[in-house]
Structure formats: structure tokens, C-alpha cells
């Protein structure tokens, strides 16, 4: 019931979000057809605006947009004139999702073990080197990591392609560049979670019962310690799935990330609103999944 109710709030939420996006992007000064060269006559510019109904009052434009949205039509892109916004999402989303999923897997696969072992081996060299790695990754942004990876792996040693998207080999560097930062954050969350849990009373109780240390850590402590990571993973996944502007630009990957930023810069109104709606839906649905995962992991959490 609880989850159905949450799902039902999605509709009014999306209405509010789409309306805000729709208005805010139009409030920004400058329009989609402000370019270096203006058309030869003002009539031409008027025709451009009329074509995309930008000459109508705002409420009418919004209703027209909603009418399209109900039918799954995100409208035409104002910048990429031969594509509809749905075309662009259809082409970009699978690429961004694939890249995002792999980066997510990478971040989890690296971050969770590192966080776990640094906590379990607290005060030993494993802790220091693991924590150093985690902090380093959090501190170096993607636009530094990516060129460094390219320089060594693609240019110096010629092991991997410098850019583009196509073969599995093409994915290695962007996945690493995108995932490393998050693996650092996850490692730190995981370490904190483990350290807190290891001091919890139920762990002391279990230890007193004579449980082996490994079973204690993996079976009992881990389940609770991983909760902060799980709650972080919802927004993280939503973030990763819609693509990364920096990584997609550097590696020339045909994903959605570039559209989000360039769409706003180009005042491609329909594209921006379409992406905001998409992103909001993903975020809400993924958060819902995260809350659901809580009930599986933590026996103390119940929703009615």
C-alpha cells in the first residue's frame, strides 16, 4: 500500500516539476534563436518562433506541451531540428544507461570491498592505504582523471581507444573515469557504516554468544553497515544513468549527459524540460526501490 501511495504521488510531483522547468528555462534571458547572425528580416525570426509556438502565451504553450506529454510526445527539439526530443532520448539514454550501470557496478565493486576492509583492518596498513585511495578519488574530479587515463592507457601505451563508443574496449576508460570518484565516496560511506555497526550492541551480543569473527562481520555487521551505501545508491544511480557531461564530452560518447548541459546553453526549451521530466521520474522510482531494499536488509524497517 505504502509503495502504491508513493507511486501515486509521482503524477502531481511530475506536474509541478515539469511546470517549474518549463517556466524557469523560459525565464532565462536569451532565446533558442539568438545567434551570431540574425535572419535577414524580422519576419523570418517571427516565422521561427511561430513554428515552435513560442509566440503564444506561456499557459497555452504549457498546456500544449502537457497534451503531447500524455501521448508520450516530448515535442520537437528546437536545436536539433530533424529530431524530436524523444528521438534524442531514445538514442542517448541506452548509451548513458549502459555506461552508468557499468560505472555503478565499478564503483560498488571497488568501493564496498575497500570500505569493508579498511574498517575491519582499522589502524593497519590496509586501512591507511585504502583510506588514502578513497580520499584521493574523492578529491580528483573526472575531468582530471579522464585525461590522465587517456594519456597513459590510450596515448602512451596504446592499450585502449582514446575516445568514441562501440566495442567493449571503448568502455573501459570512461567507466573507470566515471566510477573512480564514486568508488571513493562509497568506500568512505562503507567504512563509516562498518565502524558504527561494529560498536553496536547487537554485535557485542553476538560476539559474546561466540560467533566467529568472519561470520559476525559478513552476516550481521555488513547488512546494517551497507545501508548508508544503499540509500546513497538511489540518487547516485539516477545521476549516473542520465549520463555525465564531462565524461561524455571527453570520450565523445553519444549519451544524454551532453544534452542536459548543452540543451540549457542552447535554450533548447523542449529538450531541457524533457530531460528534467525523465530525470525526475528516474529519481523518484529509484528512491522508491531503495526504500524497498531497506525492508529486505534491515529487519527493523517496516512500511505499512
Amino acid at each position, binding site marked *: 500500500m505504502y509503495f502504491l501511495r508513493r507511486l501515486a504521488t509521482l503524477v502531481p510531483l511530475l506536474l509541478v516539476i515539469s511546470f517549474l522547468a518549463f517556466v524557469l528555462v523560459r525565464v*532565462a*534571458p*536569451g*532565446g*533558442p534563436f*539568438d*545567434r*551570431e*547572425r*540574425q*535572419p*535577414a*528580416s*524580422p*519576419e*523570418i*525570426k517571427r*516565422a*521561427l518562433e*511561430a*513554428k*515552435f509556438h513560442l509566440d503564444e502565451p506561456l499557459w497555452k504553450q504549457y498546456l500544449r506541451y502537457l497534451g503531447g506529454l500524455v501521448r508520450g510526445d516530448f515535442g*520537437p527539439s528546437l*536545436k*536539433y*531540428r*530533424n*529530431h*524530436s526530443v524523444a*528521438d*534524442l532520448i531514445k*538514442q*542517448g539514454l*541506452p548509451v548513458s544507461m*549502459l555506461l552508468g550501470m557499468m560505472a555503478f557496478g565499478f564503483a560498488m565493486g571497488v568501493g564496498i570491498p575497500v570500505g569493508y576492509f579498511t574498517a575491519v583492518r582499522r589502524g593497519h596498513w590496509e586501512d591507511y592505504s585504502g583510506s588514502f585511495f578513497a580520499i584521493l578519488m574523492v578529491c580528483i574530479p573526472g575531468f582530471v582523471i579522464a*585525461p590522465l587515463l*587517456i594519456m597513459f592507457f*590510450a*596515448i602512451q601505451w*596504446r592499450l585502449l*581507444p*582514446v*575516445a*568514441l*563508443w*562501440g*566495442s*567493449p*574496449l*571503448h568502455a573501459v576508460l570512461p567507466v573507470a573515469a566515471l566510477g573512480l570518484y564514486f568508488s571513493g565516496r562509497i568506500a568512505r560511506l562503507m567504512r563509516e557504516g562498518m565502524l558504527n555497526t561494529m560498536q553496536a550492541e547487537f554485535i557485542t551480543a553476538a560476539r559474546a554468544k561466540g560467533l566467529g569473527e568472519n561470520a559476525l562481520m559478513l552476516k550481521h555487521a555488513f547488512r546494517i553497515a551497507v545501508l548508508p551505501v544503499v540509500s546513497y545508491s538511489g540518487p547516485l544511480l539516477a545521476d549516473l544513468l542520465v549520463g555525465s557531461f564531462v565524461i*561524455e*564530452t*571527453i*570520450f*565523445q*560518447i*553519444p549519451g544524454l549527459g*551532453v544534452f542536459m548541459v548543452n540543451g540549457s*546553453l*542552447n535554450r533548447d526549451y523542449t529538450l531541457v524540460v524533457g530531460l528534467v521530466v525523465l530525470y525526475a521520474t528516474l529519481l523518484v522510482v529509484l528512491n522508491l526501490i531503495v526504500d524497498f531494499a531497506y525492508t529486505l536488509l534491515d529487519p527493523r524497517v517496516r512500511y505499512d
Partner: protein
Amino acid sequence: MLTSCVQREPPADVTVINGTEPESLDPHIVTGIPEMRLTKALFDGLVKLDPREARPIPALAERWDISPDGRVYTFHLRTNAVWSTGEPITTADVVWSWFRALNPATAGDYAGQLFYIKGAEDWYNGKAKDPSQVGIQALDDHTLRVELNAPLAFFPDLCAFPTLAVVPRAVIEKHGDRWLHAQPLPTSGAFTLGAWRVNDKVRLLRNPRYWDDADTASEIIDVLPTGSPNTSLNLYETGVADVVWDKDLVPAELIDVLKQRPDFHTFDYLGTYFYRFNVTRPPYHDARVRLAFAMVTDKSRITTKLTKGGEKPATHFVPDGVANYEAPHGPSFDLEQARRLLAEAGYPGGKGFPRTTYTFASGSAGGARMHGKIAVELQQMWREALGVEVELRQIERKIFYSSQSRLEYDISASSWIGDYNDANTFLDLFTSFSGNNRTGWKHARYDELIRQANLETDLTKRAGLFREAELILITGEAPIVPLYFYAGFSYYHPERVGGIWPNILDEHPLQYIHRKRPKSEARSPKKIRDVNSGLSFRLKAQSDSCGRIWLPTDFGFRISFGSRHAEFGFNSFELDADTFH
């Protein structure tokens, strides 16, 4: 996506990095240079530009007659011109295409390129209702009569412009704005559209039905959209791309190094970087102030210290090398005169000069970063020479253009790239009725001179009128101050890629571009060591986007054993990348 490689894509003959993702491939809609390079490969007009000098040569029209008064052009279409799907291209296609470009519903920025035709502007604005009032008339299937408002020296150049290209009626009527996704897509140019994946690539396939197919030099050309100068250079350096040709795709930090290389080409380009004054606001409403600024702007300091790519300092507005024209000399650097003019205007030594701002657009691409550097340099020049403090203001691109149009600035960075090789494409900007004037400057004599020049059929007299107008623009009134003429840049190895000739329009039809040696040579060989035999394979192969490795036709690999080696030749065959792991 990774798994989308279901059907195998053969490697391209030539891979070109062309600038950012095309906004459109519809020739009647495109506005950018990267887009136009692509639409010209897909859709021919009556005329095209020759690859060497970029002068107009016959395309769909095999010849044309011009009436003695220069107002009526009669085009004779070639009878062997057909769509890539086989139907003949007739005057009906041309007339329909031009009327489509003139339809407000098509909403092309460049519809104005057709307003030189009699009645066309009235038709666009809905004032003329009868198509016969427009000077576009098919006399028969292969003869087209075009009547102009005035004799137009550059009309053949204009006929090569994408807005006047011939597009397929049936497909457009059926599919609307998404017509370029139609299968099959009939094209009138040297190539057909093999694939168009956003931010991935545009693949052009040779159109064997093209009337000039004999001159098409490549079977497949891949055009990659890349916005990042560094990524472009990386792709070029590792042999993925053969040609990089956009002036914004050269990393500004590396230009000193790149300039030394034999595969880096720089040439004069039909574009001018300048700054505009808003003449509706004091103190720049006073021509003496504007001239004072112009006289202390040291242009060579900008080209030698900042841009460094072979750009030439500009004392006038119309670039050198434009056809049938030689520009006058503008004011030269003159400190004394500048200070005197400023004092006359009421600001001796810069005293009492109001605080004003110089605005420029933000941007991170190679060329755009230059705006900021130039702004700082100009600010310093004005401070040193005139004692005037001008603030700098960087604003986002779209806001920049909109505030420029609405005259919400004091001084503004600007640039202009010529549409066709004629002085008019620069000088008509500052007529009082041009939407691109954006200075608030109106000058009746200037307007009159430009109007007269465009009525003049004698090229020498025409040039004289233009020169007089330009003198008013740069030395008399100075609503603008030219800084430098652009240089075009590209990289490609002349021994590997042929069919590219430098010219002032940076016009390099894809039709002529081809590879001279197999691509494998360009790639650094991949060394694979067979542990058992100690044989070292140097595989000179290329891999396609699916990670499959190709050995191109009549090429093989070389086995080296110590210092000896043997070469093996193969016909084209394919190995899976997996074989090597």
C-alpha cells in the same frame, strides 16, 4: 550502444572530424558551417563551388545565360541528373525546393538568401498570393528562368548556397521535419546518408547515380561530431580520424607546437574578428571617441601575442583576398591623434570618461576561449594609451547575442564569417535595415552606396562604391573596429589524404576527398607476440567500431623475426578482436 553492433559496419575510407553535432541536415534549415559541409555532400544546387578556388561551377544546371541587364538568369538543367533513387531531377524539383525554402512554415534562418529574387520577400511575408508573382519560373522540364530584383554579381555563388539546394518533395511531404530519417532517402548530391546517429557519427555513402559520380573519390566517409579540441587531437593522433577541419577544434594552448608540423595547415579565411560600439549610448555616440579607441587598438599585438595561428591584423573590415574587391586602409595606430580626439570629445587624458563595459561571450571551445584573452588585452591597451578604464563582462552565449540585438551593451566582441565570396556579405551588415547591424548606427550615405553597388553591373565601378562605403565604416564613423582576419586551420597528412585544397571560403567538398594509402599505415602497428615461436607479428590493421579488426584490401601483415621480416598480402579479410586475447 555496445550491443548495437548487430550488422557489421565496414570501415570508412576517410574519417573527418567536423565540429559539433549537426543541428540539422536539411539544407534549407542549417545555419552552421559544419552542417553546411554535410548538406552540400548530400544535396546539390544548380551551382556548386569548385574544390580548389571555391568559385561557382555548374552542378545540376549545366550552364546558364544572363540577360544583358543582369537581372534574368536562365538555367539549363542537365538531362542526366537523377535522384539517388533513380527519378530524374527536373525544374519542377527546383521550383518546389525554392518555394519550400521560402515558406515561413519551413522556418529556415537563411530564407533571406532567396529575397534577391523578384517578389520572393513579398511571398514570404504573405503579401504576394500568386506564385507567378515570384521570379521563379519553369519554362520546361530542363529550363528555369529566374528574375532578380537587381543585377547581382554573386548570384551564381548564392545558387551554390545550401538554402537554394534541391530537396526531395515526396519524402518531405510525407515525413515532415523528420524527413531525413526516411528510408530510402533520395539525395541529389554525391553521397547518400548511410547513418546518422546523434553525437556518434554521420556516415556518407557514395551515390553511384550522381551525375558527377566519376569525380567522387571515396566510397564511405565518416563524419564525427566532436566539440572538444583535445579529443579531436587525440583521435587524430591515434589514427582514428584522418582530417580535423574546424578552427574551433584546435587546442589554443598547443598552437605554437602544432604550427611547426607538416600536417598542420593554416590559410586565409573569409572572416573578421572585430568589436562593435553601441552608438546609441554615450560616450560612444561620439565618433571621435570611437575613432580614438580604434587608433590605439594595436592589432598586431593581438595576432602575435594571443591568437598566433597565422591570423592577419585587420585595418579594414572586408578580408583580403575577397573576389573583385580591394579594401581601403583604415586608421593606423596613432597615439597622438587618438589622445587629441578624446580631448576634443571632452575627456582629456581620459578624465571624466564614464565607466563602460566591454562584453564578450563565454565559451570553453578552442576558439571561444580567445574572447576573454582579447578582452583583457584590449582593456589594457585602452588604459595605457587613453587613460580610460573599461570593465570587462563575460556573459553566456545566448544572453550575449540577445543583449547585442537589443543594444544592451557599450562595446561588444563580434565576428563575421562571409557566406559567399563577395564584399557584399560583409558590407551589407551595417546598412541601417540589416538585422545584423546591432550597433544602432544608421548612415544614409552608406545605405545608398551599398544599394548602388548592388545595382552596378560593372565590377570595377561596383568595387569603387563598396570601397567608399567601407571608408565611411572604418575611418569616417567607426561604429566597428576590425581586429584581425581569421585563419582557417585543419590537420591532415598530405601524403595520406588527397582532395583538399586551401581556399578563402574553407570550402572542401567531401566528394573529392580520398585516402592515398591504406588506413593501416596511419595507425601505429599493434604488436602481438606469439610466445611459442618467438615470432612477433606487427599487425597493421584497422578495427571498426565493433572492435573487429580489419585488414584492408590488398594489404597484409608483416612477420618480423629478429631483424628479418616477411610481408604477407591478403585480400580483405576480417579477424575477430577476440582472436587476440
